[in-house]
């Protein structure tokens, strides 16, 4: 990988990793009396390893061929492998967390192994580690292909990818040490938040610069979604994480907002992390890989426009549906509910657009598990957006809120939609990236598909049952008008569902492990594809825009 970097690029990579070492050392020394010190050593180790990797190859021969004739895929490859690694780790912890609720003794005795500390490792690991790496990697692939242009330089993509992973590592290790802001899905403390802003700005600049180099007059719809993902996540992240650190030598900070304003800001962030991280970005994936794999054009350009702007405009209003019947003013609750229901239109427009694209290719869905991953993902997207709009209606929310129904809904989206579209995209992408004829084992893809689908269904049904049961028990009255069930009564009722949930999660995890293994075996053992035809082409013809050097 280093052989593709020029001398100047290697030098700037050394400079950046060197700065990383200094920052890590500063944190370690300044925070020596605080958990921040331990985080500093992690930053130091991470940067030092990369520093030596670069330094080791500093004087190796430089690349000679004309780089504009090919795409830059090295960071994409690493990103895909990192995404799969995080998937296995974070889903594994998810199974453990789930098992703790069924069998509390699996908590063991360490301070770091309690539900409260490892649960954010699961959520952040899956959303940011798995989802984020998959988004960054696929965005690198898609922005180059749909722009028919190579990325502008070779350092920024590495900086964004590895910098983002450093953020994930600081976050996950921090939770285990008790470093958290308690804001769900925005738990990392102030220094990690600042670092993510730096990485994110670089990501946006890289995206815009690649688009600026495009050999194609139009910006393809997948890129709109990736742009919305990058931009809006930046705004959400910065506003929700505004805080004052107690000391620059310590991890602890206090949010700039309090009480009701904080609650609204948090769920404005929280719900739009779902919208712009877990929906927009992955719709970008869907809009590229599904038509590509099905070899069918997108069904409707106009529906794409409608759903894109609909999602971007409506979603942002929906956050207050997390706060029905609370101390949040009624008018905000009502706005949140209204927009959540309206959101169904652009959401189903997207799901419908994806499924209609498959018209004429349904035999491929039957035969090709990779395409089936994407098809089922679109179906789950439609289902969970319907469920979401439904649950946002105030009286429904009275029953569902605070119960496992919410957990079931989130996982219908996260497993059924986000993870399935990601695995489908990875199976479509791996042979292309590594120039392989096919995946190592088609049967393993089938196994992964059925394990993932069965795992999701078991999980979601268990949580529906558990959530609705608990919600109903809480509000059941005896004939004399007193509450019928104590809180502990509901715990007994939920026990079997918690076991079923852990089982569903385990099946999903096994599927992910099979997927990781299959990708590794594809890289190592599947013969190369020839001829290697993957280079920037002019939009006017299928001829190369510039002569092929290879």
């Amino acid at each position, binding site marked *: 990988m280093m052989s593709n970097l020029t001398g100047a690029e290697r030098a700037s990579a050394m400079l950046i990793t060197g700065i990383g070492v200094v920052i890590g050392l500063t944190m370690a020394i300044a925070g020596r009396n*605080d958990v921040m010190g331990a985080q500093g050593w992690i930053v130091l180790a991470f940067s030092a390893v990369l520093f030596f990797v670069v330094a080791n190859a500093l004087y190796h021969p430089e690349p000679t061929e004309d780089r504009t004739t090919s795409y830059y895929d090295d960071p994409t490859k690493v990103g895909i492998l990192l995404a799969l690694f995080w998937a296995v780790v974070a889903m594994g912890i998810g199974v453990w967390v789930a098992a703790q609720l069924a069998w509390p003794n699996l908590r063991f005795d360490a301070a770091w192994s309690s539900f409260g500390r490892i649960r954010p490792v699961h959520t952040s690991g899956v959303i940011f580690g798995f989802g984020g790496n998959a988004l960054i990697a696929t965005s690198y692939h898609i922005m180059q292909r749909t722009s028919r242009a190579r990325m502008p330089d070779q350092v920024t993509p590495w900086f964004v990818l590895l910098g983002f992973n450093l953020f994930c590592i600081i976050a996950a290790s921090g939770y285990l040490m008790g470093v958290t802001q*308690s804001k769900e899905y925005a738990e990392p403390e102030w220094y990690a938040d600042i670092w993510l802003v730096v990485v994110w700005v670089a990501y946006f600049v890289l995206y815009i610069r690649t688009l600026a180099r495009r050999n194609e007059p139009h910006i393809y719809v997948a890129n709109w979604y990736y742009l919305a993902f990058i931009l809006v996540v930046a705004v959400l992240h910065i506003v929700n994480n505004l805080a004052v650190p*107690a000391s620059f030598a310590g991890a602890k900070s206090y*949010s700039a907002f309090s*009480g009701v304003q904080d*609650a609204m800001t948090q769920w404005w962030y929280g719900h739009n992390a779902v919208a712009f991280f877990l929906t927009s970005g992955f719709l970008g994936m869907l809009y590229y890989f599904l038509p590509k794999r099905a070899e069918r054009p997108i069904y409707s350009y106009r529906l794409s426009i409608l759903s894109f702007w609909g999602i971007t405009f*409506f979603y942002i*209003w929906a956050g207050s549906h997390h706060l029905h019947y609370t101390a949040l003013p009624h008018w905000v609750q009502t706005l949140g509910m209204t927009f959540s229901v309206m959101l169904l239109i652009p959401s189903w427009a997207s799901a419908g657009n994806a499924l209609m694209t498959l018209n004429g290719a349904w035999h491929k869905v039957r035969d090709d598990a990779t395409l089936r991953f994407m098809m089922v993902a679109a179906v789950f997207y439609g289902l969970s957006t319907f469920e979401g709009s439904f649950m946002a209606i105030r009286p429904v929310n009275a029953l569902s809120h*605070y119960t496992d129904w919410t957990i079931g809904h989130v996982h219908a989206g996260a497993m059924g939609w986000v993870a399935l579209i990601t695995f489908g995209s990875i199976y479509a992408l791996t042979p292309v990236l590594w120039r392989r004829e096919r995946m190592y084992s088609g049967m393993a893809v089938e196994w992964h598909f059925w394990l993932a689908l069965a795992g999701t269904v078991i999980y979601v049904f268990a949580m529906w049952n558990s959530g609705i049961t608990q919600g109903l028990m809480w509000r059941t009255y005896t004939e004399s008008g007193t509450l019928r069930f104590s809180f502990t009564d509901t715990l007994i009722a939920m026990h079997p569902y918690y076991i079923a949930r852990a089982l569903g999660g385990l099946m999903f995890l096994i599927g992910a492990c099979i997927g990781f293994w299959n990708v590794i075996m594809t890289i190592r053992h599947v013969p190369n594809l020839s001829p290697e035809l993957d280079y920037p082409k002019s939009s006017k013809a299928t001829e190369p825009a510039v002569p092929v050097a290879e």
Partner: protein
Amino acid sequence: MFKTILKPFSKFFELQAKTHYRVERHSMALTFGIILAAGVGGFVEIAPLFTIDDTVEIDPDMRLYTPLEQAGRDIYIREGCYACHSQMIRTLRDEVERYGPYSLAVESQNDHPMLWGSKRTGPDLARVGEKYSDDWQVRHLVDPRALVPESVMPHYAFLLDAQLETDSLPDRLWALRMVGVPYTDAMIENAGVDAVGQARPESDWADGVLDRYGQETAVRTFDGRTDLVTEMDALVAYLQILGHLTDLPQQIQPQAEE
């Protein structure tokens, strides 16, 4: 069928598609379009919460967290208790009957951040203060299933052996004042000794706590250990103040019986 339904809107779609076909050639047009489209909702919903006066009720007698309670709150956050316990009683009959008067905005006006929560794997804690004895809370945290056999709560026995770190408390109270909590200079200066004093009723420091935070402040050996001020002291002190920072909910909702 789809096309028949959409037919009346065809002109609008035509215009939209034509305009978009031109706009989507410019990455900056998309960038600003996205920021604008996504900016409206958040602004309309969040900004007025800071300006409309009756968003948060006013209680001039509202009590502040003592340093020990704030330290306990930080431990509550550190251990991720908010992942399973809400602190927000909704305006629903069964919740009011189970947990007490519904929560008001004023109750969390000094909570940076709020801990309303999103999931009740365990019960709501908004009014758990003084509902159980200190001894019950400590024993429950050390071994939840010894007291509640059905519980799935993790145990926190290690808190009883962890000495409470008080050196950073002045900094923490200072940061809280920066974001709007009205701590006085004296409170910030004495935060460390006040934390110890609240858990040591017989010590000279105990009076300072009562002076600065009110005579009703609970000054007790919360965890039963007299040799050490532990993290358990802080956490239990925090749990025991929950729901008692203001009397406003009880005044506004006299019909609700606890």
